[in-house]
């Protein structure tokens, strides 16, 4: 019996070197793929924003296309507070999803009783394990994340991307 040849390629030959959108951990931020892209443009300008309903005044996060209170589609962009307090936190050393370096520090944040945003789960970056404590103040911070290609007719465009997290106010 002829000896079977060992496969020369390990993995998925058709996908060698290709970008796979369904495996992406970051949002598709380009205007071609969502209607809330101003959120990402605002991130690039260092602003933490969301949508407010012009009809009923309700502010929602994340930003939306229609108001979830009254279903109006007349919304405007407003800024959110950039500072929050840590209510409780968790630090992951092992088992963080691929793409997130340990220690992965997640905190339950409060923006105060009067803020448009009551609480939010936030990733704390630029922080060592054991450094963050309950009651600490954190601030909004932006950073770039990997770009992705997308097809426009016969061309391939690149979508540069940005995202946000929080860091300890020292």
């Amino acid at each position, binding site marked *: 019996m002829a000896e079977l040849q060992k496969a020369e390629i390990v993995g998925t030959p058709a996908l060698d070197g290709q970008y796979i959108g369904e495996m992406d951990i970051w949002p598709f931020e380009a205007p071609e793929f969502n209607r809330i892209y101003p959120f990402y443009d605002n991130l690039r300008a260092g602003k933490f924003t969301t949508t407010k309903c012009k009809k009923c005044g309700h502010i929602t996060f994340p930003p939306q296309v229609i108001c979830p209170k009254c279903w109006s589609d007349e919304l405007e962009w407003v800024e959110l507070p950039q500072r929050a307090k840590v209510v409780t936190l968790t630090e992951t050393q092992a088992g963080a999803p691929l793409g997130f370096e340990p220690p992965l520090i997640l905190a339950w944040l409060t923006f105060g009783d009067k803020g448009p945003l*009551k609480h939010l789960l936030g990733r704390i970056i630029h922080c060592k394990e054991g450094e963050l404590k309950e009651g600490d103040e954190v601030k909004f911070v932006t950073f770039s994340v990997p770009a992705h290609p997308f097809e426009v007719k016969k061309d391939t465009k690149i979508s540069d991307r940005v995202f946000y997290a929080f860091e300890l106010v020292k």
Partner: protein
Amino acid sequence: MAQTRNAVIVGGGTSKFGVRQAHLLDMIQEAMRACADDLPGLKPADIDGLIVATTMAGRHSSALNTAPLVVQRLGLSPTSICIRVDTLCAGSNSAIIVAKGLIESGIADVILVTGGEKVYMPQRWETNYTQLAVNDHDWDSAMGLGVPPPFFAMIAKMHMKRYGTTKEQMAHVSVTNYGHGEGHVNGHFAGRTLTMEQALEARIIADPFGLYDCCPLSDGASAVVIASEERAKAMSDRPLVYLRGTGQHATHSMSAGWPGDTLAEWPHLKTAGEVAFKNAKLTPKDIDIAETHDCFTISEIIELEELGFCKKGEGGAFVASGEIGLNGTIPTNTDGGLLVYGHPFGASGARQAIEICKQLQGRAIHQVKDAAFGLTHNLSGTCAQHTVVIYGKEPVK
């Protein structure tokens, strides 16, 4: 729509849960085989409806339109309904709610509800990676929220801070459930035992959780038959177990929408329970046995509080005093629950239903004496949704 007749659960079975050397469709066939063993008279032609509950099928088994694949593998030819549902960890409990409505309204007569997941992939990292897609992906998941332990660890810390709950009290949940899991050979951790010392000395997964505070991710499948009262009588001589009332409540998909004052309060579960009790015309005091979603030990403690089995904040002392044991006021997770039997998301609700069915028919492995009313509960994902189903030996009158 006016209710014209009653829906009952007739029987069911599960595949072996665990890290399986099997395809999703293999395990659904195993669950069907176990279900057939439980209902010897049942034939493929008896089943006119199929509801398949799965979350991972599309991504992990490349099986997006799952129901027709199950039709093929189980030799079914449904004429009333043939769908897939997905509410993550509550998949088959959601399917049971749908089946109840279809049978009571006369649209279907005999529905097979099956749920299953193939969680483990050729490379383990992919399982954790997929978990990013079960939360609000572009928001919470982009913060790194994937597998549930970090989120529930914050819930536990908050409950400990606000209500004085201790690690020892949480360990009572896992030790009790390991006792209940004994004899359930299809469970993920079948044959294992757990002492308080082992529970408290286990390696830390996410502070304050040790290994035994967390349920495993499991491959596996389960299947139950839901039928009209008339058809159930023809199929089996066992006592009838009626689907009395259901409730399902969702308020948000991501952290910014969390409905509680803090993470330790789950008002969305309280509401889901109240709706189910109202529909079932029962109160928490009437329930003899419960299968609650013990994805973590703290989850079972908070669920007992929010479902009204003990006062808010007293869940820790309640579980430590033995009230969830077989002789307690509310024996809970008498088949080992998620912590011991395992958790293939879409399979868990039907697995709970099987245990309640057997308890109410008087044929459970760890039988609770004279159990007449039972409750099942699932939460979905990072506590985004709650699903409650209440069963009884008598229908709602």
